[in-house]
């Protein structure tokens, strides 16, 4: 991989802001509803949050060691490449990219949910459609190269959360059991831990900025660990206050409630002399901005991973094309956005959260394994920071990730099973992509051409069978005739594309 040199200009504070900006995203605003539902974990979501925060912290220790030892662009992909290379490195990059796409789709849906709440007096917004529109807008902005302010959103969110916690403590907070008291609720407890784990994932965005950090030996580990700890404190405090304000009656059916838990909780807080609805509006606006921040970060991360994979030859080179005017990788951005739109269009928040968690937990496992392999095989690698209590921490990180992934599946949780199926499909797709790289560009085009010719030929056969009335298909309306003409057009274009791809002389 050719090294991409960026100017080192970020200090510890900037690193913290990057981590907090990505960590304090939309996840806590929308996923608490699913985790704190009475049928899932109820108020024991506090323990679930602590477990997922701990799992994140354990792996962040590995990130800290690897980030300080290899402070280069690429993050997880670079670490796995240094340890294993080949397929596993590609899989790490692939799953990091997939989880970013799913995270971006989740952020877009979160934006739509909060925008609907905010503008409910004026307009009834369709959630999936609003999510698609915001992805489209951000795609245009990303292509135009507009950057987000790094510190404003996290600082604003810290202030909003501070006011929310203070308001909750002063007005009507109910004490609540925070441990899973009923053993029968253990599956729900682990399910809640999977829902809450994305609330901590953002911290690792710091390693994506590692190549821009001043004094990376110290600043990367310090900002990673400090940020992971701060996220535990922030998420636990916000969740405790939110649940305490609505506890216990509103936890029943919370997952199906159209109103987010934080909005419900803010509705109970009235801070004189401000109007009663002011706290609700502040939380809604905060949710909208958190979603936008998450979306920007996720789109930035996935573009950088896609470019890294393309640069190493795993993906087609045209993704590296730079826009002549805006100097941004516009094809990579467009390709990413297409995938985000597909997932955001489903409108299924729970599944996206589960699938994003799955992808990220797989990456966590690969990062911890990379740390162990490098410790064994490259003992003289300069390590400015070493993960404490080795090998307990990486092994515990792997165990925690496996536990979070495995237990909901073992208990037959439907979303976990669907996420597992998606993960398997993506592994197969990854293997296909990886081996296509070995096949070479020229052969790939011949394969595409062959498939196009096959599609065209199949349609010619269909037309023949329809014309000879061998298959009972009748066109019953003028629209049907249009459809028939469209199919002829598709057939002709397929055959042309097939011939053009097969006869291409480009032999890169």
């Amino acid at each position, binding site marked *: 991989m050719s090294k991409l040199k960026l100017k080192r200009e970020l200090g510890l504070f900037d690193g913290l802001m990057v981590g907090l900006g990505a960590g304090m995203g939309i996840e806590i605003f929308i996923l608490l509803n699913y985790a704190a539902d009475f049928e899932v974990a109820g108020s024991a979501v506090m323990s679930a949050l602590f477990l997922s925060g701990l799992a994140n912290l354990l792996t962040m220790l590995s990130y800290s060691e690897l980030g300080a030892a290899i402070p280069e662009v690429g993050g997880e992909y670079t670490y796995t490449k240094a340890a294993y290379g080949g397929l596993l490195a590609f899989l790490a990059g692939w799953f990091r990219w997939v989880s970013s796409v799913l995270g971006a789709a989740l952020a877009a849906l979160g934006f739509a949910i909060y925008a609907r709440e905010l503008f409910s007096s004026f307009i009834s917004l369709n959630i999936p459609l609003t999510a698609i529109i915001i992805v489209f807008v951000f795609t245009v902005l990303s292509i135009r190269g507009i950057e987000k302010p790094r510190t404003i959103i996290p600082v604003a969110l810290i202030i909003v959360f501070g006011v929310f916690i203070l308001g909750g403590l002063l007005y009507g907070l109910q004490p609540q059991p925070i441990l899973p008291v009923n053993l029968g609720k253990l599956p729900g407890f682990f399910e809640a831990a999977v829902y809450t784990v994305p609330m901590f994932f953002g911290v690792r965005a710091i390693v994506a900025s590692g190549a821009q950090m001043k004094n990376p030996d110290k600043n990367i580990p310090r900002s990673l660990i400090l940020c992971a700890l701060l996220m535990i404190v922030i998420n636990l405090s916000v969740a405790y206050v939110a649940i305490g304000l609505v506890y216990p009656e509103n936890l029943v059916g919370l997952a199906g409630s159209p109103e987010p838990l934080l909005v419900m909780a803010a509705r109970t807080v009235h801070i004189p002399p401000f109007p009663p609805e002011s706290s609700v509006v502040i939380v809604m606006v905060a949710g909208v901005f958190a979603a936008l921040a998450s979306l920007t970060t996720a789109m930035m991360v996935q573009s950088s991973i896609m470019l890294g994979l393309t640069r190493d030859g795993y993906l*087609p080179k*045209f993704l590296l094309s730079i826009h002549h005017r805006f100097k941004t990788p516009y094809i990579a951005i467009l390709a990413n956005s*297409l995938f985000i739109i*597909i997932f955001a*269009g489903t409108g299924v928040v729970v599944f996206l959260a589960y699938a994003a968690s799955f992808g990220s937990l797989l990456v966590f496992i690969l990062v911890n394994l990379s740390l162990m392999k490098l410790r064994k095989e490259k003992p003289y690698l300069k390590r400015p920071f070493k993960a404490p209590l080795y090998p307990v921490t990486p092994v515990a990180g792997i165990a925690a990730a496996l536990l979070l992934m495995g237990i909901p599946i073992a208990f037959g949780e439907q979303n976990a099973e669907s996420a597992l199926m998606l993960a398997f499909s993506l592994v197969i797709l990854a293997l296909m992509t990886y081996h296509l790289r070995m096949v070479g560009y020229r052969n790939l085009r011949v394969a595409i051409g062959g*498939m196009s010719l096959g599609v065209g030929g199949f349609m010619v056969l269909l037309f023949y069978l329809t014309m000879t009335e061998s298959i009972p298909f009748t066109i019953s309306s003028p629209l049907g005739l249009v459809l028939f003409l469209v199919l002829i057009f598709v057939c002709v*274009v397929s055959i042309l*594309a097939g011939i*053009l791809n097969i006869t*291409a002389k480009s032999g890169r």
Partner: protein
Amino acid sequence: MFSRRILVAAVGWIQVLTGIIAVALVYILYQNFFDAQSVLQTILNIPLEESLPLYLLLLLIFGLFWILSGFSLIQEWREGTS
């Protein structure tokens, strides 16, 4: 070669645009916007209730494949023009 370049560009862009339209159509049918499922059922004159997911999957694969094929042709055209 000049005529091939024009053909490559035209077919490439047609494929990319048609692929995007196909993916959008999948979404419209999936969400049943504008009662699209029953409109399609009327046009094709075949029951769709059970087989719709299969048709949607095929249309999605077709759309993504055309986008991929279109991009490879556009790339050839871009290399020829640069």
